[in-house]
């Protein structure tokens, strides 16, 4: 591989979409397939530009739709390529069939979901509903808080995906609008640092195209007789084991990143000012920054408030969540999407499930905000903290609170 990066100043200003494109470039990805869709479009435009400029030595395939995006990448990964794409919302819906096949075939690729609220009503703005709609399909999902975290996590994701005990695809989720177009000062790692961190791509020789060893990929399996049922269970159990192995692989990758590049992000969950906290917010994605500022404001008033940010959402870090929240009296989980099945947020459901394993189980309530590009400000979080403090006193969980209902 001969991709040579022009030396850039260590600190640059870029938005999340450009940060992801830099990460793909630094990770020496071999193959990119693209179909533009708001708010992902500028990400693939940056990739096309980096390829045209000679910064990224990858084959870029400009296909006719998202279904083809993943299908093309399947071919590339089966031939041993390190592969990348990004999409969101309707594009993710259109690629659903090959999206399902990717983890089952244990294909280690990385795909950004530049999160967007789903149809309908028609909306082109950010929200986690698209990524949440595919939370049980078998992809690893990590959510980013900052532009810097988008860059670092997109590189880290390859180390996780290609880990021999994992071999699964990873979605790096960054919030449409607030992170896709939000620009910040970002530290760009050097190519030498990334090369030291990330070995050459590893190929899943269980499912790889090799002319000297011809084999069928994805044969018919299952049914009620013969070897089918047990074989199918082996596939599924293997996939579930790979997901569980990912927890340790994600922690190890973050540790390696901190050692080599010098920047440390919490791998599974981040506990912020939780030491003596009586109440806590649980957050996901770019909302976390404003929530931390709201926690600081409450702390300045002498209130014992903390925050737990979920970085790794799939596999769900059940034990880490239970540990982080044990001992607090009340928890408010803030979702940027809805669970239609339960009239609350999906992260809320996961958190109360994990709290079954907490030594002391706090009361927990659901907040939903930031749908379809709506802003969640420190004022919204301030009101959420007050509501959770009331819950800590009276134990009355009450209805789901829609933060932007009266904006």
């Amino acid at each position, binding site marked *: 591989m001969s991709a040579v990066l022009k030396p850039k100043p260590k*600190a*640059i*200003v870029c938005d999340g979409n450009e940060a992801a494109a830099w990460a793909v470039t630094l990770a020496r990805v071999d193959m990119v397939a693209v179909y533009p869709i708001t*708010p992902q479009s500028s990400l693939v435009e940056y990739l096309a530009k980096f390829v045209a400029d000679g910064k990224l030595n990858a084959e870029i395939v400009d296909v006719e739709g998202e279904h083809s995006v993943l299908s093309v990448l399947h071919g590339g990964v089966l031939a041993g390529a390190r592969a990348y794409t990004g999409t969101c919302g309707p594009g993710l819906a259109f690629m659903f069939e090959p999206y399902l096949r990717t983890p089952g075939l244990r294909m280690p690729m990385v795909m950004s979901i530049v999160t967007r609220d789903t149809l309908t009503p028609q909306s*082109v*703005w950010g929200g986690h509903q698209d990524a949440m709609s595919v939370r049980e399909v078998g992809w690893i999902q990590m959510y980013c808080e*900052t532009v810097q975290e988008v860059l670092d996590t997109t590189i880290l994701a390859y180390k996780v995906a290609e880990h021999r005990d994992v071999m699964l695809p990873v979605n790096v989720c960054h*919030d449409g*609008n*607030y*992170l896709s*177009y*939000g*620009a*910040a*000062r970002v530290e760009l790692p050097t190519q030498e640092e990334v090369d030291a961190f990330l070995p050459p791509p590893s190929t899943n020789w269980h499912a790889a195209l090799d002319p000297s060893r011809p084999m069928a990929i994805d044969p018919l399996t299952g049914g009620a007789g013969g070897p089918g049922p047990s074989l199918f269970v082996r596939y599924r159990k293997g996939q579930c084991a790979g997901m569980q192995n990912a927890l340790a692989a994600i922690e190890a990758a973050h540790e390696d990143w901190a050692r080599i590049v010098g920047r440390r992000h919490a791998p599974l969950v981040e506990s912020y000012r939780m030491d003596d906290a009586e109440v806590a917010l649980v957050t996901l994605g*770019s909302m*976390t*920054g*404003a929530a*931390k*500022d709201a926690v600081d404001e409450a702390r300045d008033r002498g209130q014992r408030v903390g925050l737990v940010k979920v970085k790794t959402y799939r596999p769900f870090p059940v034990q880490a969540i239970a540990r982080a929240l044990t001992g607090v009296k009340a928890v408010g989980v803030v979702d940027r999407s809805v669970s239609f099945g339960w009239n609350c947020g999906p992260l809320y459901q996961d958190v109360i499930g994990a709290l079954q394993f907490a030594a002391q189980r706090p009361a927990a309530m659901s907040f939903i905000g930031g749908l379809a*590009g709506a*802003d*969640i*400000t*420190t004022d919204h979080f301030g009101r959420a903290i007050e509501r959770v403090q009331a819950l800590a006193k009276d134990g009355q969980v009450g209805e789901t609170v829609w933060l932007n209902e009266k904006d």
Partner: protein
Amino acid sequence: MYEIRIHGRGGQGAVLAGGILAAALVNEGKFVVAVPSFGFERRGAPVASFLRMDTREIRQMTNIYRPDCVLCIDPTVGRAVNVFDGIRDNGTWIQTTARPIGELQVPDKVAAVGLCDAVSIALEIFKRPITNTLMLGAFAKTTGLVSLDSLRAAVEDSDFRDAGLKQNLLALERGYNETTVHRIEKREAA
């Protein structure tokens, strides 16, 4: 933390102006977050872009509702939206206009006004009313929060090339030099 809201119209480069200002501030060692308002605004529709600066890391990735400074790169956008919405006490207003300070309604909360006839200058330089880099010069002159040198370096580092780069560097310079800054005395309550 210092919060700036840039008002313009679709196609004038309000978002690009935010990006160039952010790069200039980072070159000076500041922390910056720039969040554009986003949508599918057609050319000419009012747009806004938000920029926070601080000497320490900024965590909020949100829009700005209580700006310290309002930077209007369009002469008439103030008729379409209330550009002063939420402006803080002792705020700064930077406006492209051909009118003198005496003809403008300055809200009570505004303590400093920077005026630049950026449209006329842009028509001379670009033959089109592109005011964004001109108004960055006006921002530097009015607030002193960023140096002209840093802005120049950021424009040189952007995607402008050749004649376009020269024009934008000239626009920056003229925006700086041809902005008048007015300090407003604290008015007594009526």
